[in-house]
């Protein structure tokens, strides 16, 4: 089968997923040998991290430079009881309590042009749980350059979107070449955010990451867009843009000026 043999305790812990033909013992071993990194331990990250840990993803990296504030707890449930603690540390504490099979690497910092490629390089999949355009573009571009799959999601109010980017698929920049001009979109503070929306989309991100590790079908060249007020879910086909500066391979390095304001790459 492979060099990992499931222990009796692991057979019990993962029983409900070992039963399924899509996972089984081989899939579980794949999960235990895999490494995922969640960038942002906020609303999306809070949900994604819990289920990646539960499923037994062998190593989880958690990146966040902020600390837990009382305004976070409406949606960032992973941080229960940890007010004031760094969010990556706080989330790591939860993971260790839930599942000792998981190794956690904490990055108590935010991603930037200088650190992002080094941080993501050793991982099999990157889960983008950040809350701002510059970080989303930065992660997309870094993942394309490093050829690492990326699960993107963003939520606002009761609305959310999710897509998975793999080498050779359409990337985030193929869909959104640039960020809306500052001031034209309401920030989270202005528009509000339903805790359940981050929960649903964060769990969907974990679902995509898990399926990716298992080799199952993912949201490749597709974006799922959902309005949780009307419960309308739209699966939209997206196409690779031949002129995309990033996934065409034209741009090979991350430049500071590509991640300010509209994040456009000229």
């Amino acid at each position: 089968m492979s060099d990992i043999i499931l222990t009796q305790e692991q057979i019990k812990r993962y029983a409900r997923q070992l039963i399924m033909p899509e996972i089984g013992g081989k899939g579980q071993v794949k999960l235990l040998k895999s490494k995922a990194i969640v960038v942002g331990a906020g609303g999306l990250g809070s949900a994604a991290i819990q289920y990646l840990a539960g499923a037994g993803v062998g190593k989880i990296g958690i990146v966040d430079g902020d600390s837990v504030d009382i305004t976070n707890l409406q949606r960032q449930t992973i941080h229960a009881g940890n007010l004031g603690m760094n969010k990556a540390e706080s989330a790591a504490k939860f993971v260790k309590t839930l599942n000792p099979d998981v190794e956690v690497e904490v990055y108590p910092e935010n991603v930037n042009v200088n650190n992002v490629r080094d941080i993501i390089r050793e991982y099999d999949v990157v889960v983008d749980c950040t809350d701002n355009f510059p970080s989303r573009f930065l992660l997309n571009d870094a993942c394309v350059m490093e050829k690492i799959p990326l699960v993107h999601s963003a939520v606002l109010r009761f609305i959310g979107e999710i897509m998975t980017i793999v080498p050779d698929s359409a990337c985030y920049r193929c869909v959104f070449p640039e960020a809306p001009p500052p001031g034209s979109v309401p920030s989270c503070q202005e528009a509000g955010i339903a805790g359940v929306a981050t929960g649903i989309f964060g769990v969907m991100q974990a679902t995509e990451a898990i399926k990716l590790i298992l080799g199952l079908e993912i949201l490749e060249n597709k974006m799922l867009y959902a309005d949780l007020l009307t419960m309308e879910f739209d699966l939209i086909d997206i196409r690779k843009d031949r002129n995309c500066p990033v996934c065409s391979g034209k741009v090979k390095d991350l430049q500071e000026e590509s991640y300010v304001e509209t994040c456009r790459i000229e």
Partner: protein
Amino acid sequence: MLRHAELNDSNDRIEVLDLRDENCPFTFIKTKLKLEEMKKGEELKVIFSDEVTARDVAKSLTSEGHEVLEVLEIHGAQLKGIDGWMLRVRCGR
């Protein structure tokens, strides 16, 4: 309880898994994990404590693409002093 190694039938070289002490869903999961280690076409014998368990596992194995050859009651004289229900299955994947 006898260990697996002692149960192995050296004449036909078919591996025997004794799961008489296991409950659902581990009766199925442990059979399935064993089959995952085997090659397609290889045969396995699994012993369960009762008929219902043996037939439930058989049904799940069939739906996963394995070929259930038979489910039958066995008595001590047939297999190294074991009483129970035996399922014979051929690895299908």
